[in-house]
């Protein structure tokens, strides 16, 4: 057990832990969340209702949760990782059986005070479980075929459940997030090369077979792929959102149209302007300066997380930190690519900025884990 390697005496205890938190990270998270409050206030037409105020309360709640989680020693989190994973999977199955139907997909469990999206939770618990798995696994076995297939199941089981909802965005995040943890854990290059090559080959085969004798899928399925890949070919249907989103983004210009002056979001041309497409409002009203600032904040968060992971000698802690940072990165990278028209539209929110309870709370809890790893990192005797 790696905990035995800790110089227990040097790990801070009690309230002294607060001094050892990664405060830079806390400030960065708060700064990003403030961008969110500002935009939610703006898209509501200059009102704290209906979005900005609840979002602030949730952020405050999430911050408290983050601190609490940070106070708990990291090894305890490692020990409950398997249970957390199993619990999340059960919740996903529960949603499948009797969740409420929202936006055409079954995603929520109504807890009374909030709606819980188990798929959000799943992204973190899966990373936790994978990190715990590689912490447990002898590093010499990491690339052996059996020990590679096992984590694949850990990733694919929740992915399958999420796809059934259907929530393509989360499924992509799960696969990519899990893959990144495996990569960080040191699984051999060749596996990734094979998977990527096989995937590319399959896609090529499907696309190439179109119109030939050995066409692999039906025509209507091809048409769906077409609109998915190039939404602008259907300007009033799937392409409407992305076209309007690009107009909003581009019309912001270098310095933006001014706070609360964006015509695209003001006049409802933007879809989901308080959730998935909130970045476009930011880009419209604050221009390139605002959008680049947010991107910089995100980059700094990633840098601080990775720095913390690299300096942490605990295998579970650093894998967890990298995994969570990667998941966080995937969130905003996919979201931004989507609104800028670089990627198809899949339902992925902008982390800490988009309106939404589950995502906010789960993300802050995840950063609580990173903080815990940071606070309880093994330190050299000095």
């Amino acid at each position: 057990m790696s905990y035995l390697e800790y110089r227990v005496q040097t790990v801070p205890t009690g309230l002294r832990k607060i001094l050892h938190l990664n405060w830079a990270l806390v400030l960065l998270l708060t700064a990003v969340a403030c961008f969110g409050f500002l935009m939610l206030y703006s898209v509501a037409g200059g009102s704290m209702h209906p979005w900005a105020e609840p979002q602030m309360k949730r952020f405050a709640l999430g911050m408290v949760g983050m601190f609490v989680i940070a106070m708990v020693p990291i090894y305890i989190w490692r020990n409950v990782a398997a249970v957390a994973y199993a619990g999340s999977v059960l919740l996903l199955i529960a949603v499948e059986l009797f969740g409420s139907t929202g936006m055409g997909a079954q995603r929520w469990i109504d807890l009374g005070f909030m709606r819980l999206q188990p798929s959000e939770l799943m992204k973190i618990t899966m990373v936790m479980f994978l990190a715990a798995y590689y912490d447990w696994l002898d590093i010499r076995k990491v690339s052996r075929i059996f020990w590679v297939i096992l984590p694949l199941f850990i990733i694919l089981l929740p992915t399958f459940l999420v796809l059934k909802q259907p929530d393509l965005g989360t499924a992509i995040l799960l696969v990519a997030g899990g893959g990144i943890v495996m990569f960080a854990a040191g699984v051999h290059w060749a596996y990734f090369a094979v998977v990527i090559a096989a995937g590319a080959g399959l896609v090529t085969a499907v696309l190439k077979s179109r119109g030939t004798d050995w066409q692999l899928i039906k025509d209507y399925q091809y048409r769906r792929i077409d609109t998915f890949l190039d939404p602008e070919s259907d300007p009033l249907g799937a392409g409407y959102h992305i076209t309007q989103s690009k107009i909003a983004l581009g019309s912001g210009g270098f310095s933006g149209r001014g706070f609360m002056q964006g015509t695209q979001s003001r006049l409802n041309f933007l879809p989901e302007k308080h959730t998935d497409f909130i970045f476009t409002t930011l880009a419209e009203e604050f221009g390139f300066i605002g959008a680049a600032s947010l991107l910089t904040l995100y980059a700094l968060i990633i840098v601080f997380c990775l720095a913390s992971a690299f300096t942490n000698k605990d295998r579970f802690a650093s894998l967890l930190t990298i995994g969570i940072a990667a998941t966080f990165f995937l969130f905003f990278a996919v979201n931004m690519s989507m609104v800028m028209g670089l990627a198809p539209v899949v339902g992925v929110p902008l982390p800490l900025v988009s309106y939404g309870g589950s995502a906010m709370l789960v993300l802050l809890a995840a950063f609580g884990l990173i903080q815990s790893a940071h606070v309880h990192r093994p330190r050299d005797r000095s």
Partner: protein
Amino acid sequence: MRRPTKDTEESARRITRRGLILGGSMIGFMGVLAGRMRYMQVDQAEQFRLLAEENRINIRLIPPARGLIFDRTGTPIAANTQNYRIVIVREDAGDLDETFAKLRKLVPLSDADVERAMREIRRRSPFVPVTIADQLAWEDVSEVAVNAPALPGVTPEVGLTRHYPLGEDFAHVVGYVGPVSDYDLSKLENPDPLLQIPKFQIGKVGLEAKREDVLRGSAGTKRIEVNAGGRVMRELSRLEGKKGADLQLTLDHGLQNFVQARLAGESAASIVMDVHTGDILAIASAPSFDPNLFVRGISVSDYRRLTQNDHRPLADKSVQGTYPPGSTFKIVTALAAHEAGVVTAGETIYCSGYKKLGIRRFHCWKRGGHGFIDLHDSLMRSCDVYYYELAERVGIDRISEMARRLGIGIRHDLPMSAIAEGIAPTKEWKQSSYGESWRVGDSLNAAIGQGFVLASPLQLAVMTARVATGEGIHPRLVKSIDAVEQPVQSDGPLGISPTTLSQVRKAMYSVSNSRRGTAYRSRLLPDDMKLAGKTGTSQVRSVVVDNKNVPWDQRDHALFVCFAPYDNPRIAVSVVIEHGGGGSSAAAPVARDIVARALHGDLPPLDVFPSGERDSIAEIWDAMPLRREDGSFGRSDRA
């Protein structure tokens, strides 16, 4: 299980190595995102901003107020009234069924209205106002306004709609407006964008349609900001349109009302014209209809009632109807023959009761014949044989030439629908229309206004006016457009010798004022009201029958034309009563009353009429549906 330190070190190194690769990729991808942002927001910003502007700004048309139509005294004939309607916005309305239930207690709403509204509500976006009821009374709308708190999402609105305050009186001449139809649009090469406005009213028939060009006005525009759903957020700027021009007509609403009322019950038409200016003072076609029904959108049952009426209320008989002019056409024949010099005024022709042409006999209406008869007596007593003889001598082409000179067989240019040209037949015309050559018998029939000759009441009025003055005046309906006086049109003197004209006028005077005249009973006593007229009875069937005992639609048409006063003509009147029987018995009394009304300027006292006629006239007038000053209808108060 304790892990060797070497493994831990190795593992940490490996994680750091892989982590750096990952971190590098992430930062790299963020660089791509930043580059994309820069490209869109800096390099292409102008283009996207243009697109955003196009998105939000819409240009809407502001419909102009339609020009008003007044009579010559300034009384409105076609007005724009406030149209009160109730609209509902679904997203504000709450429970629709409940709202409608409440509304039905306040406003008269049929099941069909509710169903139509519900259908439209379901079809439209929730914020689009849907009209529940249109053309409501002010009282109903104020009820709704008072109860507004209980009716969320329901609001009264006001717009402009056409209204014809004088109802039936001007239905044919002024016509009516209605919403633009696809058919209307299909007829136009380059339609005014205004016509795309839903329910925009354009002239459909009559003056409203013919002078649509000046009445419509031009659209204003407003630039509005809309949101993605098309909801109007605010108005950015506004450019007012130009109101349509107001028309003042030559008609007199009081006289028009009298004429229309005097024709009530008949299928008839009458025109009163100023002989000097050509101003049409009254132009009536009976029965009439309420044009306001068409503005609102006529119901199927109302429409069927109008189309199935054998008196054809929708047809404008005054300009569209053409009739054999009968003996009134003898004026034309007389003038043609005397101008051609084939007969002189004093020359007598023998009427034995018929004229023989080959083996055919052309009968006079008086079987016993009139004996030796000259121009004056032949017109006064309406001898047919005299005109058969004249026709034979002068020939059809010169008769037709005279007819056209007097306004028959030509289309008069009035802003009314489907104005008939009538027929002034020539040899050439028969050849080309029937492929047969003209026979002398055709001339004989034409000479007494039968056979091929057809004239509209308007043409008969023009003929009479031209005979009265000797000037080629043209009828005029529009007196001024936006206070700009329209010119009086005249071809100048007709070129008929004054002697001949005065002889014909003298004979017409005798028709109404000589004891032997065919319209002696329908005379007026005061010197300044003396009529000079001509009766006409045109056959619908070839056999002369007793008009009392045949079905209505087989009776003869009754016609009368006249001008008055004889010694200083002011007005010309034509009256055509379809299947009215005889010109002297049916049409002349009507014309007499109209002349008396027109010259007196109001209902004349009974002592202008011969004492023997006064009781029956009083009886007829009492039964007339005249409009009272307060606008209501009813028996006149001339007690």
